[in-house]
């Protein structure tokens, strides 16, 4: 639903270079899986795509236009943490996305419209396996449940680009397979462009149409912060011939 083009992107925190010379062209409707060592800058890259931070150098173009300077509903996100609102219970968290979409002025629906939003939200929660926890507050949910809630919330707004930061890290294989199915289905249905950070290479190849590997090409042992990571491998996944077992097969592995 949107193309993305990254040109010679650099990101530095003070003296520490996190990303350098990142170049990328992503077609409409691609599913990019981002992998790389812990701490190499994957979350930072997502923050840049989100306009949460500004690159020190380089540009990002969305549909040929410079990226808007603010985050917006065109790009949805599931963060590693703090992704849900602690003062709203599960169903309210998801309904909030619908309420803002339908009443951008007030950010609040009333009466019938509100009840409709709440019951839609309940359906979406059931989709991510939280049907029984609608009334729970985030503090009452386990880590994996919070993550699933965040996914439901981000999907509710049907963004053109979806950014996922290790969304399935805290899920058991059963639930994870279910979530894989859900994400794949929604991706196919809506045609949105997805960026997903994951540490599970299997998952990256199972879901992605492209796997982007972040790594440092230069290294100075005396100054570990001197050089940043970049995209070292950009692997297209040809699903028909892929030899990697699909996510649903994994369940029966042991």
């Amino acid at each position, binding site marked *: 639903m949107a193309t993305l083009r990254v040109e010679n992107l650099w990101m530095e925190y003070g003296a520490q270079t996190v990303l350098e010379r990142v170049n990328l062209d992503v077609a409409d409707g691609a599913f990019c899986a981002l992998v790389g060592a812990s701490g190499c800058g994957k979350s930072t890259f997502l923050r840049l795509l989100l306009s949460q931070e500004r690159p020190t150098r380089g540009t990002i173009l969305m549909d040929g236009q410079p990226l808007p300077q603010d985050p917006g509903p065109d790009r949805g996100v599931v963060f590693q943490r703090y992704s849900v*609102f602690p*003062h709203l219970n599960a169903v309210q968290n998801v309904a909030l996305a619908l309420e*803002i*979409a339908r009443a*951008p002025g007030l*950010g609040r629906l009333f009466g019938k419209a509100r009840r409709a939003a709440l019951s839609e939200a309940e359906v979406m929660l059931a989709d991510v396996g939280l049907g029984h926890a609608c009334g729970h507050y985030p503090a*009452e949910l386990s880590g994996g449940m919070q993550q699933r809630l965040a996914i439901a919330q981000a999907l509710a*707004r049907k963004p053109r680009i979806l950014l996922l930061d290790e969304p399935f890290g805290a899920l058991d294989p059963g639930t994870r397979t279910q979530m894989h199915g859900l994400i794949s289905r929604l991706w196919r249905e809506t045609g949105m462009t997805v960026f997903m950070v994951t540490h599970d290479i299997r998952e990256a190849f199972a879901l992605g149409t492209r796997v982007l590997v972040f790594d440092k090409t230069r290294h100075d042992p005396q100054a570990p912060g001197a050089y940043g990571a970049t995209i070292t491998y950009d692997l297209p996944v040809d699903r028909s011939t892929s030899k990697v077992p699909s996510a649903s097969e994994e369940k029966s592995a042991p």
Partner: protein
Amino acid sequence: MRRLINLRPSRQGTFFLGALPFAIVLVIYFVFSSLRLAENPADKLMPAFSTMGEAIVRVAAEPEQRSGTIVLWADTGASLVRLALGLGIATAIGLVFGILNGLIVYARVTLAPFVGVLSMVPPMALLPILFIMLGLEETSKVALIVIGVAPYLMRDLALRVEELPGEQLVKAQTLGASTWVIVARVVLPQILPRLIDGLRLSLGPAWLFLIAAEAIASTEGLGYRIFLMRRYMAMDVILPYVAWITFLAAISDWVLVQISRRAFGWAHLGRGA
């Protein structure tokens, strides 16, 4: 041996331990009062509980000769109205500017230094200017409470707004929320419990400013009565009045806690949640 931080007293234990310091203070008062009264039965400083009891009956149950009103209730009514107005206005100001300063950098750089300096001005010293601007009647009393309390609430709430995880604000934006919607649906509901905490911490200062204001020009009010009674050191009235003010403040505090528990259950779901 168990660690101190993991020990929890029983229900009765809680009650008993909580009552202990109060009992100790009462006993200390009783001892010193008795000693003083044994020396000078007309001592004004630490009257006996019985003397205070009589004074309470006089102010709380018998109408005053001159005006025909029952002093304690008239005073209480007048003071509570001023306090409610003052705290209400201070809360509104604190909330609006707290959110503004905490959330919007432009507002912060414009207002925060000024509010910071303003909160350092000793309000009492500027009373003459306040009078000329607002007159001697209720307005200036309420204004003194507002001036005394609002800067604190404002700064405290701004700090709390700044503490909200940045991820939440970004997340709200990715759901399409405008600044206004972020305020209404993300920021405001999350700082309301803190507003209540701030209000609780402001009750003491608010009473302080109320009493100071009532000392300046008034015809009724709890602070007025205390200052009047100070004219002839009628501690038998002053001490019950102070106890009454403390009681009223403690009750308000309790009510605020209850409101917070009921209305913002999510904020009490356990540590660090």
